[in-house]
């Protein structure tokens, strides 16, 4: 388990969905779902990654662009679940 949630999620997204991208282009505020970076299958893979990596379980209604559209939002959700 890692404490650097933003870093872990960013590394995963860069490796899986933005191969070759300059890491500086993906910030904590980059729109992921509404910005076309994650489609529905990619979103599902991110959810599986954070559930396994951080030992949490997301509710079905949390899997959408309102909760997961940026790395900052994802990290906030993970922290809320872990606390």
């Amino acid at each position, binding site marked *: 388990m890692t404490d650097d949630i933003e870093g872990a999620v960013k590394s995963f997204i860069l490796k899986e969905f933005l191969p070759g*991208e300059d890491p500086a282009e993906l910030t904590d505020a980059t*729109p992921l779902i*509404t910005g076309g970076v994650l*489609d*529905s*299958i990619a979103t599902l893979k991110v959810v599986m990654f954070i559930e396994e990596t951080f030992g949490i379980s997301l509710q*079905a209604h949390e899997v959408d662009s309102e909760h997961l559209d940026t790395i900052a939002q994802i990290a906030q959700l993970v922290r809320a679940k872990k606390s």
Partner: protein
Amino acid sequence: MLHIPFGRAARQYPDHVAVIEPGKGSISYRDLDAVSDRVRDRLRADGVGPGDRVGLCLHKSIDTVAAIYGILKLGAAYVPVDPGAPPARNAFILNNCAVKLAVIAARFEDHLRAELEKLGTMPSLFVLADTGAGAALRHALDEAEAKRPAPSTPTATPAAGELAYILYTSGSTGKPKGVMLSHENAVSFVDWCSEVFAPRTSDRFSSHAPFHFDLSILDIHLPLKHGATLVLVAEDIGKDPVRLAPLIADHRITCWYSAPSILSLLAQYGKLDRYDYSALRLVLFAGEVFPVKHLRVLTKLLPAPEYFNLYGPTETNVCTFYRVSLPIPDERSVPFPIGKVCSHLEARVVDDRGRELSRGDEGELCIAGRGVMQGYWSLPEQTSRAFHEDESGRRWYRTGDIVVEAADGDYTYLGRRDRMIKRRGYRVELGEIEAGLYRHPSVKEAAVVAVADEEAGHRVKAFLSCRDAKHPSLVQMKGFCAQNLPLYMIPDEFVWCDALPKTSTDKVDYQQLKAMA
């Protein structure tokens, strides 16, 4: 006429539940009939008449179903747009077919209005505060009624050739094109569905596809012809197998219809063994090839229902069908045939000069009959190219799909003759993606190729050259595409080149790009 069987069912089964909107509410046949009558009257009072087009920019909801029947009852044609698509695309569509009025949810109004103004057009807008369980539509009708009462107007009985709806599909020139479907087209298809799937009043049909997608014609109009119930699946849940799997079980859905991609996801991620699917009797899929390995997993998890592979472009709706025999042998890897031609249509296979081929020869599948579209809205040349006439002058729609007919009459799909692909069930012209990419100020050249992919149907790879010294980042390009193209058209990969490879005639060398992909 498409709306008449619903009216008959409403009189026969007034207390049956017509539509369920999970988590929001439901509506009986009696009430859906009454609300759609009010929509008919309101539209008439607002200046819409028989033969006009009426746009719909709404999320899937009871409100939307009521609006569709209201439009049909007036004798007008409905034009559903994807509320999640870029507003400029939706404005183009509404302007292209000159809708007299659009029923729209308030959340989409500002952006759409701005784009319509840019085009110098402004149809009347009937704005709903939101959508859900029909409440917003009723409220909007009440408010309009208080300001200006709408007198009752009779339900129309349009001629068979009058338009019932226009569905826009991806166009190779970069602009979507409107497929014009008449009442006869739609009714002949729905009647065929009745014959083959024998709906019962106890059935619960899924509505998984968006309403701007041709699968919605079966979803909406088949159950509501027969006193059965339609269960609406919200767009966000429809993409998420984790939430979708319990919804199908909890709502005791009996007839499921969708593109194969979500069924593949359900088989892989839906944890289907946790839920009770004993009500499910039919699983219908259409829109793309279902990879056999995923279909096998699904049918092992859910062995009881009958499985049908339905095939057909928007221009004909379903034109062939194939019942999958279970169990699927472990050694089978080739996709199933698209099957036999539907009874309301005729099929023939032709060569590139339009000459009919013998059974067993590979060629283009052409379809004639009552279900075939009238043409593309205000595109006479494309319409003309889409058909060929036989010796007797009969028009045959050219599907663009290369098939072969087996001795038993089953057709097998082999590929395309052009640059159209299927992606998550959506039809995509690669030329439309290229046109979208060219809108980026840094893009000098753009060419797109598709690579077969088991999960998505196809992966799309864009090859680009840049006007500037430094090309935009991947994140910037994806973000740009999200603003300019429907999400299912965003390329998976972007490759920047100094210049795109060319043929000896200085055209983009797609063969070389395919080799590079």
